[in-house]
């Protein structure tokens, strides 16, 4: 066998899994796409986020918390190994509200979830004045916010770069410009690429984002993932204006304000639109009026990889044991879990996390 693991997809999800496997001394080959591939890894919002996750599935909230809790040491190790720090800030994040009614409704849901999580859901509600003390630039239209102390944000591009560097440093083989067209299992797994490359592997991890929809059935996965467009804005670099991130805006470590994001069901059209950009700009200004003078320098549309319920899918193929589907929307938040906890599940060790609720059998037609 050429490699113990073949990882299909060289984004943050695939590289995080590869990194974790390499750390255990396993041999890994990553098959990555090209410059034009859809890459949520370089289009995302960069949050390492807990609040609002798993409102109907506490296990998902817990999984996000587990990852957030070990993110700092994961980032530290990557930075140490590669000499390229992965900026991370975990001093809490906001859910900003423009109406008392939505704020109260959200708080009620958070309290329910907190009970289910045995009280481990550290959030507090800030009224406008309390919020203003924390965020002097907050606008009068913001009635309050939920500050969740387990939230934070990272530099997702530096994470991607450090993973790409460290996977190679640890001896991972990364094949670029590859489109996997077929996977068979005559004995071990055999992966065929569009350019004629073939790779033999003991196990296969399908972490190809939207690519999993087409490739999944070859390994008897349903892989019910669909694209959802998010338009994102980023301003010129500015002096410190925002202290903590929110779903509306965050100030990145380089100084720009990142503003997001739309949720649009438009297939694989990843363009930006003037109405989309304008709507995001208006909301960001409502939250932080000083942003009205900021120059927008870049915008992009990226495609979320969404399952029907928005939660991750972790599934071993029933028909082809040794083939795993790993896909999620929150590849940044879950990167640490994928790097440090998921290998135990792939290797079926005693420490394997219980990921049963994330099986794709939950989407079975009943």
């Amino acid at each position, binding site marked *: 066998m050429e490699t113990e693991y073949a990882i299909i997809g060289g984004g943050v999800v695939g590289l995080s899994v590869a990194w974790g496997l390499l750390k255990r001394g396993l041999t890994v080959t990553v098959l990555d796409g090209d410059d034009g591939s859809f890459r949520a890894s370089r289009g995302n919002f960069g949050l390492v986020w807990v609040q609002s996750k798993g409102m109907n599935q506490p296990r998902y909230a817990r999984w996000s918390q587990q990852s957030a809790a070990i993110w700092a040491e994961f980032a530290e190790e990557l930075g140490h190994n590669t000499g390229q720090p992965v900026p991370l800030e975990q001093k809490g994040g906001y859910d900003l509200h423009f109406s008392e009614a939505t704020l109260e409704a959200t708080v009620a849901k958070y309290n329910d979830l907190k009970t289910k999580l045995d009280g481990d859901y550290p959030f507090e509600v800030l009224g406008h004045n309390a919020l203003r003390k924390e965020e002097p630039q907050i606008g009068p239209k913001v009635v309050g916010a939920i500050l969740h102390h387990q939230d934070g944000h990272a530099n997702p591009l530096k994470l991607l770069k450090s993973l790409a560097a460290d996977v190679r440093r640890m001896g991972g083989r990364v094949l670029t410009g590859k489109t996997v067209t077929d996977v068979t299992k005559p004995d071990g797994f055999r992966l065929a690429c569009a350019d004629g490359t073939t790779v033999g592997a003991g196990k296969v991890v399908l972490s190809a984002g939207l690519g999993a929809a087409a490739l999944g059935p070859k390994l008897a996965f349903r892989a019910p993932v669909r694209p959802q467009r998010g338009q994102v804005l980023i301003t*010129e*670099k*500015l*002096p410190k204006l925002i202290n903590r991130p929110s779903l509306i805006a965050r100030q990145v470590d*380089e*100084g720009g304000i990142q503003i997001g994001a739309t949720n649009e069901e438009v297939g694989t059209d990843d363009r930006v639109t003037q109405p989309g950009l304008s709507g995001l700009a208006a909301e960001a200004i409502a939250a932080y009026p000083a942003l009205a*003078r900021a*120059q927008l320098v870049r915008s992009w549309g990226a495609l979320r990889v969404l399952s029907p319920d928005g939660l991750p899918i972790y599934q071993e193929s029933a028909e082809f044991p040794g083939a795993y589907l790993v896909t999620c929307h929150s590849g940044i938040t879950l990167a640490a879990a994928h790097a440090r906890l998921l290998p135990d599940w792939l290797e079926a060790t005693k420490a394997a996390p219980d990921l049963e609720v994330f099986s794709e059998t939950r989407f079975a037609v009943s």
Partner: protein
Amino acid sequence: MKPDSPFLDLETAPRVAVSIDGAPLELPEGANLAAALLAAGVTVFRHTPVSGAPRGPFCMMGACFDCLVDIDGFTRQACMIEVSQGLRIIRPRDLGADDVDA
């Protein structure tokens, strides 16, 4: 007093009062702001937010964004602005530094 400029100015349009970093300056009315500042001996227009490196006009056609200055709280390309009475020009500095000398 006008600092020694590396440029010679052929035009003699009437001058209007503007300010740069709070200091008064007279520039030809209606002139291209970047050109007028160069002719007035201003060579460094800003320090970059990335490394604090000094920059001045490079392309003079609105493409390179090196002549960025702050006008009334907005970042603007000096080469795309015409001089008018009372213009308040602030030269952007390194985001982290307070005492960069221009």
